[in-house]
């Protein structure tokens, strides 16, 4: 079995062959599914926890503080300690709550973000499923999350939760349009919905550079809309703690609260991954056409690190937003989407189609 950090496809295909030789095809696929499931689950937990840690550290540095620094070196194990605490906490039952919906809501939210991870290419040959409609799939499953939020708000039997859930519903339904349309802009450029093809198409330059101005506009719109879609500041109206205490998850405690919390961070990771994959070339190293020596040096950095670096960059920008800007009001939020982002986006798609048709892109 060859293991190559620059190309995981040889490793995965030889592993697949090994299983196929030793088991019947049904069992081989079953084992693969279980292994991939466990791998994604572990990845999910670790990334979620360390995004929380990263956020706490970053916001601390932005606020002249030190941040977590007690558990482990530089507080590195703080979030793990927090998770253990949350696991051991009591799940407080709510009077007159709709029991079934109340219990099911956190799972819907976390499953939605869990499913989206499956389609993301982390490195060359390192993705669970390579759909030919990858972008469409991610858009579809990440929209399921809002159902969980609405259910959580409704079933909590709490007016604050309900207001938060309604806000969240209006917000996500609106901003989904901008996210989708800004991705469509790049799909026009790439000519494919398949994520692996899109990444391959950025071999000689990332789409944000090759797509002229429309790609940059699409990136900015995507950044704003994605921040809104993940319910993060300055668009965190659904859980605006100065207005609604904690919004839709006010009544949740213990591990159910942790699910919402983890899902929020994973959603941020997913949209950052999409931004990195679609606009910044995913795991593709930074290449400049014609500069062979430079390209060769860039190739030396493993694709996985490229991917992590780009995602971390987008995540950092989103955290920067949150810890700098005040929160918008609900009507301003909807005005921003329907009066500004959506028309800009529609015009942008037309420009992009024109650019692609006339072949002006690089």
């Amino acid at each position, binding site marked *: 079995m060859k293991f190559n950090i620059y190309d995981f496809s040889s490793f995965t295909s030889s592993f697949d062959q090994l299983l196929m030789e030793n088991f019947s095809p049904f069992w081989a696929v079953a084992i693969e599914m279980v292994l991939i499931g466990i791998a994604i689950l572990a990845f999910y937990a670790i990334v979620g926890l360390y995004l929380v840690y990263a956020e706490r550290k970053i916001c601390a540095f*932005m606020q002249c503080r030190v941040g977590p620094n007690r558990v482990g070196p530089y507080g590195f194990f703080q979030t793990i300690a927090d998770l253990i605490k949350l696991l051991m906490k009591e799940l407080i039952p709510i009077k007159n709550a709709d029991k079934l919906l109340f219990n099911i809501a956190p799972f819907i939210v976390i499953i939605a973000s869990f499913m989206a991870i499956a389609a993301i290419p982390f490195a060359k040959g390192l993705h669970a499923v390579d759909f030919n409609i990858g972008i469409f799939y991610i858009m579809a499953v990440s929209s399921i999350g809002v159902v969980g939020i609405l259910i959580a708000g409704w079933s909590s039997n709490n007016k604050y939760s309900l207001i938060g859930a309604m806000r969240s519903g209006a917000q996500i339904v609106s901003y989904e349009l901008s996210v989708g349309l800004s991705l469509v802009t790049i799909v026009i450029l790439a000519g494919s919905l398949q994520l692996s093809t899109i990444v391959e198409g950025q071999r000689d330059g990332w789409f944000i550079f090759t797509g002229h101005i429309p790609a940059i506009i699409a990136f900015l719109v995507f950044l704003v809309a994605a921040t809104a879609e993940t319910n993060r500041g300055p668009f965190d109206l659904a859980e605006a703690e*100065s207005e609604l205490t904690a919004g839709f998850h006010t009544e949740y405690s213990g591990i159910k609260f942790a699910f919402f919390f983890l899902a929020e961070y994973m959603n941020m990771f997913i949209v950052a991954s999409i931004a990195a994959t679609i606009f910044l070339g995913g795991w593709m190293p930074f290449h400049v056409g014609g500069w062979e020596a430079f390209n060769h040096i860039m190739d030396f950095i493993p694709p996985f690190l490229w991917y992590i670096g780009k995602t971390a960059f987008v995540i950092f920008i989103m955290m920067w937003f949150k810890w700098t800007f005040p929160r918008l009001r609900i009507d301003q939020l909807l005005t921003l989407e329907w009066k500004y982002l959506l028309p800009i986006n529609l015009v942008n798609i037309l420009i992009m189609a024109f650019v692609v048709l006339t072949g002006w892109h690089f």
Partner: protein
Amino acid sequence: MAEEIISGQLEEQEFSINMGPQHPSTHGVLRMVLKLKGETVKEVKPQLGYIHRGIEKMTEKLTYPQIIHLTDRLDYLSAHILNEAVCLTVENAIEVEVPERVKYIRTIMDELNRIASHQLWWCAFGMDLGALTSFFYGLRDREKILDIFEESCGARLLVSYNVPGGLMNDIHPNFQKRVKEFITYFRKKLPEYDALLTGNPIMQERTKGVGMLTKEQAIAYGVTGPSGRGSGFSCDVRKHQPYSAYSKVDFKEILYPEGDTFARYKVRIDEMWESMKIIEQLIDNIPEGDYTAKMKAVIKLPVGEYYQRVEAARGEFGVYVVSDGNKTPYRMKFRSPNFSNLSAINLMASGQKIADLVAIGGSMDFVIPDMDR
């Protein structure tokens, strides 16, 4: 229950909600019962009494030097100014002239206290709008003032530095140096506040034209202090009825005629600049002398009624004393700015969104123990 407090029947699609007494943005145990239609606030009914301690009644059993320690507990963010109000009342009643040194130090302390209070307001206002970072910037700078207080007064928040007739003790030898250091430091840091929040387009969108209060309404509701001056109501006691050393310094009364949340915000930011100007004029000229006047061991006010008002960080604070000649007051009444300011909240917030109510509450800078007493 919330429904019973709301006036009239709830129409279709309307509902009531309790904001407080435990709520992050009421800045204390204030309970506001809201009538909402979707996101729009139809009516706000503040319910008080959750932190009532009967301070006015307690004063009837305490001597005047003891009362000082209770006035701290009203508006704890302008503790020094409130102490001074009681001291001035007593000093005026028994006709004691305090030394010039005391007047200067009191004025400097007042203004430091005002800056500290406005800093904390700025922190909390940012938080109300959802800009969490502002909280830490404000507290970072407020810490410097509290250190100055700690050095001279021994306490950081509830200083109790004033006593009838003067001060508890003389200023620390470092006082002047530390205050001057703070002024140079804060002159550099205050523009950061503008950079982080004032110039932010989201913040301006959130505050401009929100929570309108005209000058006439401000006067009618008795809205004083920075909140009243944000409506163009000239109500600065320091200007109109100078006490301590305010008649000796040159400063502007900040007035913004707009009457919206942003105007009230700007008043407070500009007041911090003005306070620094006042301190700079006084800090080098503190006269030598005693830190307290000669006072009798037991202070008895002559029979009569006495009133003294001062400009606290949130508005006009008044002390009304009825004395029957004993060492304790017969009756004592505080005119607290927050109580009057709160009365205008329904006027300002009805018809606005929930988020606006929070912004308006933040811009009025409520301190709940001052309302309930």
